[in-house]
């Protein structure tokens, strides 16, 4: 319990609650259940790509192409639906697109050895360009009602998609804590060479991480298309950076080896909530980015200061212990010295 309270995820969650409460003193409309549900609903896209990003960051990698993958998957999804392919099959198409894009990233990074940031930056351009080539630069509209109704269907006034994503998150959280192979992500991220010496298949682990990032981006594309009802060319644009910001905010270190699914979920929720709170505070929308950036910067710097303070205290304690030990040595162990 104490461990949970001390975790970064909890800190951010607490900040989130404090922020909502603080805003509610100015504008009580924030606390209406419907408002909160809508905030969660609008953060689904970011939550999904952030979860994918989390796997990559856990292995000490980075994937800046997730937004572009989501865009490309959305285009494929929209085209598949418009071609008359039934909804479940179209969803599979979108997921497969994401998976394939992720595997392309993985192949370059794992088998060729291209630095992750370079590889995914390159594919960011490639996927985004491909998206325009496929559609000729025009939006995909007149998407069948089936997917849109799915998005507006509410169950106990909570959208069906929120239920679906919540279920997915809980199942994932359980799976991640139960499956032994998940530990490989942490091991590889924390110490690649060490993991290799332990007999962990480092390449397979890294490959899986990028493939999963692609798969979740594909899932995010389905949610996006359902919620928006058409596929604009800007789909997912800039979201890759928000996804990285979300996981870092939630406490996944870019140095690898840390993080849980809750980091991604809470980080993404936090970023979306910040945007929504601006509306309730009647701050012009043009300031959204500035606030998101300032919050991210403040949290990572604050986190550094805490870590430094903790380390300094540990060092001071150890110094004090050594000081004591030396004094003991001077007095208590004197005879032994004399014997020698």
């Amino acid at each position: 319990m104490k461990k949970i309270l001390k975790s970064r995820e909890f800190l951010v969650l607490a900040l989130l609650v404090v922020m909502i409460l603080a805003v509610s003193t100015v504008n009580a409309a924030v606390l209406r259940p419907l408002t909160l549900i809508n905030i969660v609903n609008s953060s689904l896209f970011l939550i999904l790509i952030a979860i994918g990003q989390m796997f990559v960051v856990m292995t000490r990698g980075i994937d800046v192409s997730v937004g572009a993958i989501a865009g490309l998957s959305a285009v494929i999804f929209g085209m598949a639906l418009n071609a008359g392919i039934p909804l479940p099959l179209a969803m599979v198409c979108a997921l497969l697109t994401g998976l394939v894009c992720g595997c392309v990233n993985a192949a370059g990074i794992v088998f060729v050895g291209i630095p992750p940031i370079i590889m995914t930056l390159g594919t960011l351009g490639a996927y985004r360009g491909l998206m325009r080539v496929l559609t000729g630069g025009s939006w995909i509209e007149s998407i069948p009602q089936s997917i849109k109704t799915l998005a507006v269907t509410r169950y106990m006034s909570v959208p069906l998609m929120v239920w679906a994503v919540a279920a997915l998150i809980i199942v994932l959280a359980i799976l991640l804590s139960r499956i032994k192979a998940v530990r490989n992500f942490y091991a590889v991220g924390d110490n690649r060479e060490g993991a290799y010496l332990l007999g962990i298949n480092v390449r397979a682990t890294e490959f899986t991480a990028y493939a999963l990032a692609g798969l979740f981006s594909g899932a995010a594309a389905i949610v996006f298309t359902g919620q928006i009802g058409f596929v604009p060319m800007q789909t997912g644009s800039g979201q890759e950076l928000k996804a990285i910001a979300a996981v870092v905010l939630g406490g996944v270190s870019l140095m690898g080896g840390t993080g849980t699914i809750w980091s991604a979920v809470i980080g993404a929720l936090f970023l979306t909530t910040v945007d929504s709170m601006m509306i309730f505070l009647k701050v012009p929308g043009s300031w959204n980015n500035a606030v998101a950036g300032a919050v991210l910067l403040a949290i990572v710097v604050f986190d550094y200061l805490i870590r430094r303070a903790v380390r300094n205290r540990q060092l001071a304690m150890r110094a004090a212990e050594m000081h004591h030990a030396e004094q003991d040595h001077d007095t208590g162990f004197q005879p032994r010295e004399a014997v020698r």
Partner: protein
Amino acid sequence: MKAATVFKSWEFMLAVVLVLELLVLGMINPAFLNIENLLFSTSDFAHVIIAAIGLTLIIMTGGIDISGVSIMGLASIVLGLAFIAGVPIGFAVIIALGVGIAAGAFNGAVVANTDVNPLIVTLATLFLYAGIATGLPTLLDMLGFQAYGAGGFEAYQYEGITGLPKEFTWIGSGRIGWVPMPLVVALLLAAVATWVMLFTRFGRYLKLIGVSPAVAHFTGVPIKRTLVTVYAMNGFAVAVAGLVLTAYLGSARSDLGSEALLSIITAVVLGGSSIYGGQGSVIGTLLAGFVLGFMRQGLLALGISSDVVPVIIGLLLVGSVALRIGLAKLSTARANRAAFAAERLAVEGNGGRS
């Protein structure tokens, strides 16, 4: 430097690629090889080269600054707003450059004083500076500054500020002889950056930090001061890039250059800089910038849709790094084989004697 090392260097390969590229494009369309056209078309991508030169110095230290594209927009809108507010244009340029340097130095200060990854720091400031740039007009309105237009400064949030004086737009559209001003600025900055890298102690510090921060620290390199300075220098470079682009387009916008990030990083990496630091050159970045820029121009001139261009640039980025990795593996393999052969020779020679 021996002639052989020059011919084997990455920069020489880039120069060959550049010449080949121009020849191929010229063969397809002879109008492309018109010197005047060629020089004039550099104005379209000079801002990418200028920003890439600044980034080269940072990547040399093993860091990265992705917030540069936001600083470009910030410098542009600051200049525009200062001009609207009646500040003399020369002074407005100084303010905009000052904002760029301050923004860069802030990045550097955070990177130098914490252990937070530079990518994350500048990711945060990428949002922060872009947000300040788009929010600045409304902020000025709220602070009660009187704008001349009816809509206040807010009107300039989405549309560019035009009507900039000729003395300023000359930086973007003027030329000295045949050479357009943006290219002059880019070459000038490249020359200064090359001098810094090759002939100053500061340049050596940058490289040493990139090779090994720990060794640099124990050698007595003032790491913090060096990092803050180099990020501030990058802030200056991208602010210049933003102003050059503003002058070229004749309009100050807050979202100026926001799509240039991929091209900028591609130019630096294609130019031979290692993303892990300690390796690279300004000349390489400059050449890579030309290769990329002319390629874009050529593709567009050939009637290839501009949608395909990012695909090609992306593939080029990945391909160039893969090529370098392949070359490095080949040379290691060759060195290993040579060492093995030498060893065997030595052992056999030894065996014969005993």
